[in-house]
């Protein structure tokens, strides 16, 4: 589903955020990208989303080489990839329903289709009563649920999550993780960058550990701790 081949990313200032990273992620997998701050987790997520161009190497997402993707095709890639970020990235001037529906509006779906799909996904994330509220009227956990709903409303085959629990308390984080787990069980591939030990240990999924932009460990049913031991 996602394949990285000798990917290197060097930022303008000379910082090497990804160094010769190769990775294969199968359809329906749940993969944690772990590592300390600056290890390159977020950069990998951004590269998979073509939010940044690679310096060297190749990335395939859903069978397409996105490193050579022309600019005008990037929106099509992003429509097939749901994204969830630490800071929720909701449009402040739109209601919860409009925020979720926006992902369908960009596809040009008719209004008659958008409304039931939005209701359905809001129900899935437990916010069916909050469709008319604005993001500022919601708690952090609720805003992140809206963000997950927006990412999933289009039923994308892939979800990329960058520290989705970074701003949340442990109890709320568990709620978000249960949601992502449910989504993963529908066959959606989930890649999640995190430095939340408890979550990684509890979920027992594939763990790819990064340090200094390099993959230092790749384990099925892995734990977070081994990374700290290596440090």
């Amino acid at each position, binding site marked *: 589903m996602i394949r990285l081949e000798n990917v290197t990313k060097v930022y303008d200032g000379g910082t090497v955020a990804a160094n010769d990273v190769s990775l294969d992620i199968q359809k329906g997998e749940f993969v944690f990208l772990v590592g300390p701050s600056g290890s390159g987790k977020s950069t990998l997520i951004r590269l998979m989303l073509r939010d940044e161009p690679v310096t060297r190497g190749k990335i395939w997402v859903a069978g397409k080489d996105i490193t050579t993707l022309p600019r*005008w095709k990037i929106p099509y890639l992003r429509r097939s990839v749901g994204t969830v970020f630490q800071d929720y*990235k909701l449009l402040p001037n739109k209601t919860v329903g409009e925020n979720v529906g926006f*992902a369908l509006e960009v596809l040009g779906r*008719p209004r008659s289709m958008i409304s039931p799909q939005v209701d359905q996904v809001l129900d899935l994330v437990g916010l069916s009563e909050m469709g008319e509220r604005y993001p500022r009227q919601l708690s952090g956990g609720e805003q992140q649920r809206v963000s997950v709903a927006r990412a999933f409303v289009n039923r994308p085959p892939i979800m990329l999550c960058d520290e989705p629990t970074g701003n949340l308390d442990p109890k709320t984080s568990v709620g978000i993780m249960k949601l992502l787990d449910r989504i993963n069980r529908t066959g959606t591939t989930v890649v999640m960058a995190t430095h939340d030990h408890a979550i990684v240990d509890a979920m027992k999924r594939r763990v790819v550990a990064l340090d200094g932009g390099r993959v230092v460990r790749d384990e099925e049913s892995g734990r977070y701790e081994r990374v700290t031991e290596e440090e």
Partner: protein
Amino acid sequence: MSKVIFLIKEALVSLRRNILIVTGAVLAVFISLSLAFGALVVNEVLRVNTVAWQQGVHVIAFLNDEDQNQVPSGAHATLQTQVEQWEEVLSVGYVSKSEAWLEFQEIFANREELLDIDPTILPASLRIELVDIAFHESVRFRLEQQQQVVRQVATAADSIEQLQNLSNVLNVLGLGMAIVLGLSAVVLIANTIRLAIYARRDEVAIMKLVGASNWFVRVPFLLEGLIEGLVGAALAVFAVWLGSTNLARAGEGFVLFRLDVSEQWFLRWGLLFLVFGALAGVIGSMLGLSRYLRDADGTGPDVPTGF
């Protein structure tokens, strides 16, 4: 179709939500286009007056009386026919001695002491309008060759030529000002809209993140720019029209200088300014957006650096 309705709705909602920024953009268009349109009106007033000065009699040839001093009978008519054929001449009018006396009486109606003269001393004359005022020297020369018939040649061409030169300079200045102010309007509008977009750059980034195409992001902003440009230009045209009309009304008593500009001119240029305002708004939006759309594609700089 639902996409189009959505985008129009987005633009209208955004106009309502960002009313302060929108007011700023409309004011920027209004002020700069008012100045540009005002300069153009001044230019038109100058043009109209120059044309008025250029029309009419440019050269007068006072003639010796016929049947006297070897001037044969019919010499005036012959000269008139001859002059009419000159290529520098547009038209020739003949004022006989009796008509000259009538004209004299009309001009000096309030000065009775001057009317107590012998009417026969007033000469007949040819009133000549030139194709171009620049020909006055050559026509004067040719008339002066007709010594037998022509007594004296008078021309206002020197003064008209000076006025024309002055008017040409003012015309160029007015047009130059209108162009400079028009260009600065585009820059001002572009910058104001850019500021408006800068305030909403996160919104643009989020739209791109969920897969909105560049045009999907762009269209509401372009519509906003178009509406802002159109409203600002309409206000500018109306304000200048109002000012000019009132000024023309106040200056109705002036004989030498007209301040009025025709309705057709206002209509033509007003429409053109509306189009210009709308275009400036659209171009301003495009310029303002291009940077943020590039950044959101992951092909721009790593960190936006402001302006």
